[in-house]
């Protein structure tokens, strides 16, 4: 199986992408899709990405829900900040969070989550110190942000490492 599909999950994702793109589940489309996703999985071997295995799929659903909720909340919060921005200067600032993630893919996912959440911006990750520098729009709740980031990191660590 590994020989044929070096990155099975990834290939499945690609296959799903193909189906969505073509908006069709016709046999022809499926055959082409299977062929292409297998082929592209193979190409990926050449680029030698870090492998990750999904350990606990159940946790993933939970994390996704948390993230979604956070995103909605942050959207509203940040919109408010922007609309009020003219009145008084927003209380913004930098902060470092210790993030103990080894896996590159996990880090990447964390980056996606933090970026997708308005109000936090990923700036630098120091691999030696395992410290993440972020910029937040609402520095008043620094602890809240720190907790959130740590929670995400812990979740990802469990899922991917």
């Amino acid at each position, binding site marked *: 199986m590994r020989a044929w599909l070096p990155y099975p999950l*990834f290939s499945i994702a*690609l296959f799903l*992408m*193909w189906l969505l*793109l*073509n908006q069709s589940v*016709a*046999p*022809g489309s499926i*055959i*082409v899709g299977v062929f*292409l*996703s297998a082929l*592209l*999985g193979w*190409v*990926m071997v*050449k*680029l*030698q*990405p*870090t492998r990750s295995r999904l350990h606990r799929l159940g946790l993933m659903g939970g994390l996704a829900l948390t993230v979604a909720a956070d995103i909605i909340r942050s959207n509203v919060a940040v919109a408010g900040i922007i609309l009020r921005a003219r009145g008084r200067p927003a209380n913004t600032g930098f902060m470092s969070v210790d993030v103990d993630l080894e896996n*590159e*893919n996990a*880090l*990447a996912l964390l*980056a*996606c989550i933090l970026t997708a959440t308005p109000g936090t911006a*990923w700036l*630098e*990750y*120091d*691999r030696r110190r395992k410290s993440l520098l972020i910029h937040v729009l609402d520095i008043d709740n620094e602890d809240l942000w720190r907790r959130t980031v740590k929670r995400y990191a812990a979740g990802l660590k469990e899922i991917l490492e």
Partner: protein
Amino acid sequence: MLSVFILAPFGGSVIAIFFPSDQRGATAWFAGAIALICFLVTAGLYPFVATGGVLRFELDWIPELGLNFTLRMDGFAWLFSALITAIGFLVVLYARYYMAEEDPVPRFFALFLAFMGSMLGVVLSGNLILLAVFWELTSIVSFLLIGYWHHNAHAREGARIALTMTGMGGLAMLVGMLLIGRVVGSYDLDAVLASGDAIRNDPLYNAILILVLLGALTKSAQFPFHFWLPHAMAAPTPVSAYLHSATMVKAGVFLLARLWPVMAGTDAWFWIVGLAGLTTLLLGAYFAIFQQDLKGLLAYSTISHLGLITVLLSLGSPLAAVAAVFHIVNHATFKASLFMAAGIIDHETGTRDMRRLSGLFHYMPITATLAMVASAAMAGVPLLNGFLSKEMFFAEAIETHLVNALDAATPYVATIASMFAVTYSLRFIHSVFFGPLPSDLPKKPHEPPRWMRAPVDFLVLACLVVGIIPAQTIGPFLHTAVVSILREETPSYSLAVWHGWNIPLIMSFVALSGGVGLYFLMRSYLKTGIEGPPIFRLLQGQRIFERVLVTLSWKWARSLEQRLGTRHLQPQMRLLVFLALAAGALPLAVGGFRLPQLVIRGIDPAFALLWAIGIACAVGSAFLAKFHRLAALVLLGGAGLVTCITFVWLSAPDLAVTQLLVEIVTTVLILLGLRWLPKRIEEPETADIPLKVRFRRLRDFLLAAMAGGGVALVAYTVMTRPLTPDTIASYFLGQAYHEGGGTNVVNVILVDFRGFDTLGEIAVLCIVALTVFALLLRFRPHPDSLESPEQQRVQNAYDDDHPERAEGESVAEYLHIPSVIMRWMFPVTGMLAAYLFLRGHDLPGGGFAAGIAMSIGFILQYMSGGTRWVEERLRIHPLRWMSLGLLVALATGVGSWLFGYPFLTSRSEYASLPVIGKVPLASAILFDLGVFSLVLGATVLMLIALAHQSVRRAARAHARAARPEREAAQ
């Protein structure tokens, strides 16, 4: 038979060039044989022309243009042919001894024979254009002959001046000939000679006259074109003897005589030809007196005698024409012999300067005697041929042809010029052969070899014989020639030596005694004097000519070139824009363009806002491009994006996709390039910008605004016009599915209806990629940009300063997380490309979009991982992809040949396969695959080639750093 005259010399010329250069004798004998054959043939043809017959030879050359290879020999042409071939033979004989060991003789004789052929061509041409052809050939060959000793600066100059003058005249003459052809309706000489009245009465007559005379007068070295001849004396003496006395310079007067029946007799002819002739006659003779160079004296004398002939022809009287022809022959004989004698003197003594020569009679009595006789003929001493024609000239001079000042002055000028002739002839003889024995000659003189002198012997004998018994010798030949020119106008004349006591005889006597007196008066002056006549010396024709030529053809030309042209790009662009604007506006302005009605209704506010953004991007980009390059590029991206949305909005999804993809690649490309451009200093304060610059910018702004406005106006006009019903688009929409096999009409057009365009377009991409690649292989960055960018230096220094950090850790850290995502995106991009490719035929997409999308996948990898990283992992062969792509596209097209259809005929079917269902099987998809492969290869090649510069830069900087050390070590 006549073709021999052309074939033999030219053929001989080609053969002669292949003689080995040490075979002086053989080459000469060969050339002599050719000349002799030609002469014998001429002689043999005499009976045919003697009775007034005309020999013709015609060969089709360009009958469509009325130009055939027509040779025509009448009496006059015969006389000239005889002269050319006979003297030609003698000169060859002479040259055999004259030319030095080290001279490349084969070249000389080859040119000599070519010249003889050309000259024969001139006199034998039966077609005016053919005559012009041979005419110019004589100029060209004479140029090469004069410049024969090209290591000598005088020879080069002389050759150049001669060619410029005679070539110019020849070109003018050609136009004259063309005009004659227009008037007559033919260039055939017979037809022309029969149309005298038509020519003289045509409104173009004056133009014809001036143009033809320009040819004739320059060739015959008539004032004010005379000065080339003395300079041509730098040629070897045989050349002077042949070209500059006997033949080529006679071509001008030959032409005057030839066209005499159709052109002479008008006031214009009389004035122009007469004035030129008289001036030349007098000035030539006067200048000849003051020459110190033997050949110079002879050259001016030639000019003067040619002037005499010209005067005779100007008079428009038949008798004068007879005299002219007679003098042509006489002058050829005595002048050729004199040149040869001068050559012998030069050859034997090593100098031609009359101030150094004297008393040579002592060393070379025979040569001296011969020269004396020939000089006497030149001076017009009785019992010599020169005397006879000069008497005829005097007789004509005193006649009244037209009542005007010029005619009245002729006898006096004639006498004075004749007097001068006596003076210079006497000077020639007296100063060279008599007086004290010479002391400082380069060589010790003695008589020349027997056969070197033989030609002179012969010619001098001819002078004597003709001078004594003209009627029995030259008489019949002269008559034949005269009759062929004058026909029924031929007057009765007598060639007797004695005509009794008359005014011409008195004039001769005055000239002779006056000339002798003048010589002895001026003797001491001439002996010490410098070259050239007093006063006139300062006014040298050649100097003026040179100065005019240099001014016109060099100084003025250069300044004009600079003024009318430019080597800067900006003015050129400005002109291009301006002309395009004018060209576009003119038809509209001329045709009374009506502005289309403005339609304000139905404006979509979102679209309007979109374009407000687009316009702001464009204008902003224009204003920031100089000092804020990055900002300009960002804004350019904005403008591109607005364009892209517009395409979607206006139902062109294919364009939007392509535009967007290209946009991305272009931005990356320009950014890749930006690194190699010099840093731009900050914008100066507006107040500091000079007024001139501000004006320039304003002007450019106005021009750009007008051009932009024009484009917008035209676009608006067309857009608001109703669509033409029968456009080719209707056909495409109708046929796309049923015959093209696709529902996306744009794509069917691209790969089928107009697939050939696409083929060309990918070829362009291929070419550009190859060019970029090849150019970048030779790319040499400026030293300024050789250093790594400041950012890298700072970051590397940081890494270096901290011992625990590895080299390049900063960048690795920077790209750490992004590169993870970008790497996973690579297959995703591949999927997108596959999607775009496969649906292209039915929905937006296609090979091109797919190729670019895939190449962006590659760029992302290069950006995240760096060149080395990627190339360690992915084998990339863009050149092969390009090659394969082009070949696949071509093969698809050629495949249709097998089915008997033209290139690129598509075969499309929707095949029904089990399970899978209907699948489009268009050959066009294969074609598109080729497009994909090529586009991918080309784009990747360009990007990689550019990206590689950074790697090379690093290697180079390394080498550079190592060099000083190496040098120090040495």
